[in-house]
């Protein structure tokens, strides 16, 4: 860890500590993992961006069925590349201390496959397929499930909006437990 200490200036560390839900130790750990992922460089360059695929090697994301959406959503420049600060963002949202509304916001965008700002039948179908892995539900069962989901939540038709999603997750405390990992 001695090396990592020289990578960040005190000001940067303060920034990271105050603006994310990570502790100082976790930030150093994150840097270590980041270096392992992208390969050690001669001089540490925090602003360099790497293609999304690099992040897929992270053990926590490797077997995650939503990994492509995760890297897409957390890429701040929308350029399918991930920088170190995006990585920190991801860890911060996934940490224990992040509040529900933050997690709900990002989860909504992760599940929104067609990126139309609402979770409609199309998105739900893809989500369910990803969740069940290699075995797929029968078509009619899937259809009924989607229908049921939309009926339960969607009050005004046109898919589940951001607000509705946030609202229904407040009734789902298990979500916070499920939607997290630590570095």
């Amino acid at each position, binding site marked *: 860890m001695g090396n990592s200490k020289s990578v960040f200036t005190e000001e940067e560390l303060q920034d990271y500590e*105050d*603006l994310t839900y990570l502790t100082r*130790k976790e930030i150093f750990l994150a840097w270590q993992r980041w270096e392992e992922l992208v390969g050690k460089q001669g001089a540490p360059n925090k602003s360099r961006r790497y293609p999304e695929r690099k992040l897929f090697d992270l053990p*926590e994301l490797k077997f995650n069925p939503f990994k492509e959406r995760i890297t897409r*959503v957390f890429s701040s420049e*929308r350029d399918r590349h991930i920088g170190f600060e995006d990585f920190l963002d991801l860890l911060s949202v996934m940490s224990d201390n992040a509040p529900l509304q933050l997690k709900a916001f990002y989860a909504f965008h992760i599940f929104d496959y067609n990126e139309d700002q609402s979770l409609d039948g199309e998105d739900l179908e893809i989500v369910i397929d990803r969740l069940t892995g290699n075995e797929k539900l029968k078509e009619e069962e899937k259809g009924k499930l989607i229908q049921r989901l939309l009926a339960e939540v969607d009050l005004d038709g046109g898919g589940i909006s951001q607000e509705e999603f946030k609202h229904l997750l407040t009734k*789902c405390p*298990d979500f916070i437990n499920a939607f997290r990992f630590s570095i």
Partner: protein
Amino acid sequence: MCELWDKKENIEFSETLRINVYGGRYEEIWSLWYHTGCLPSVPSRDLCPAYWEALRELCKPLKLKKEIRHRLTARQTSSQAAARTISGWKHFKYTMSMHWYKMKQSVQDAFHDYSLWHKELKKVEGTFGTGVGSYFRFLRYLFILNFCITLLVCGFILTPQLLFRLSDENENLSLSSQNGPEEEIAFEFAVSDGLPYDRSLSSLAYAATPEKFGPIDWLTGSGWFVTTELYYGTYHNGSFSLASGQHYNVAEAYFFVIFLCFIIYLVVILHRVIVLYKNNYIDTVHDMPSTYIKKVFSSWDFSISEKKAAALKHKSIYNELTELMQEYMNDEVNEAFCARVMAMCIKLVFWVIVLGVLCVLGWFMYILLDNGIDENVGETTNISDVSLLIYPLIVTLIMMVVPSILEGIVRFEGYRSPRHILYVNLVRTIMLELTILGVLIGFWYTREQKPALPETTDSMDVDVDTEDSDSTHVQERYCWETSLGEEVYRLLIIDFLVSLLLIILLLIFSIVTRKKSLGRAQQFLLEFSISRNTLHLIYDQTLLWVGLFFCPLTPLIVLLKMTITFYIQKFMALRFLRADERPWRAAQTETVFFALTLVSLILSFLAYGFNILRGHSSPDCGPFQGYKHYVDFLWDLTENQGTILAVIGWILRPGVVAGILGILM
């Protein structure tokens, strides 16, 4: 294309800012933002901690947050801003709250950052998910709590007592050559009321009964251990002088430190329960049935990082969804009123049966304890015998076997949801545990409540039995607290050994059947049952609380036990066991576990309170010897120091209690 930089959200952000940061001057600043899109710089002394929180919670990339922060804290040089100065008081207030906030953050970070077992936990969670992870986290939490308490106890009770013994033994070596110690002691023991003993004699009393240390003493905790600091009986009942004329009163220290330990436990666990409850409470009354949503969106556990575990999770989600849809597709039959009443009756019958079984068990335990005592020669606790192990063995076997039976029965009772089954199981197992421990304490308590006469009669009987002179009479002192402490020690040790044995058997079993296909019984055994293991932890912790007063080193024993349990469970889980294929609702069950722990703690605390008020202290051993009731000690103490009473009275005022609870939350 998904746009996270919508103007709408920018406005939302400024709304947050205006409320938290700018106080009353928001109108002008808000319009400035809206029209130009840039924020004016604000002198840093205007900012308060709410600002940090608002910024952190913002759903924006880190880069943007940094930019905003820098703009907000940039130094102001224009005269316009200089005119907007705030009063010295406000500045002071903000600075103070800033420092307080930072301090709280760093303390929280230090606590949450515990790297104790961090890697191991991560591995287990990655393989099994958050359900099993929550068991290990619970274990770690209790471990750290117990560790702090052990330090407290060792530092303030054990060490002074050891110092006292050392210094005293040196003194009395010179004394003993002069008087005949046995006669003096025999004389002293005739008195049993009121007067505190002269310290040199009581310590001599212990020096007069050196016991040989036999190998079986490790199991029974009797014999040589009785004369050590392991139990209540050995502790000195007065004060002694440390260097330079300072006096350290062992009895007072004993009382207050144990009291303090309980208060710490109470506060910490209560705090945790409140936090968990706040986070996990759902309003089920006004809730629409949102099971489908939950099953879809919170089913994937994002902490899974192993291939096998991921495959397992996929399978379990698939199973659950198909089950759900099949249930939905078959029409739900509206149950007739009769059927519902019938179902209720069945459940009631089962509950009555279970309660009946518990009562029978309790009565059986009582008989066992009673017989166990009479079989021993006299009531001495100095004889270390294998027969002492019968009671702990039976209790441990009951605690291992009966919960599994209960789990089996519950499936026939017709509960609808798995969660109800889980809760019913938990409640019944806790009731079982409390019955057993309650009988244990109640037995010893009622025993020593008998009037003084039978005690002396018994020892006289023993006298007759042994046909010996006064010297052996001296060795048989009835110290009920030590006996109770010994029982707790035995329970802990035997429980530990039996679970080790079971684990070894399980290991052999799983090695033998590795390649073969899994039958139902095998599946049941090789599953990592979270509820069973957590209940076992709660049982250990309750034993700790019961034994704390009577055997001050119980936290140390439980600490060692927990460490070994952690490593063994981790090893077993990762190598041999499989996770439960059915999904586990971690959040609410965690709350329930902590709540159950709290209930056990409160009950032990009340039992202690009752004991202190009404219990008879042993006349000849321990720090409170010579007082009829424990509470007399407290009155004696506060007689001389009216201030203590005043302080206690002040602390217990409702305002102060509410204030403390408010800070905690």
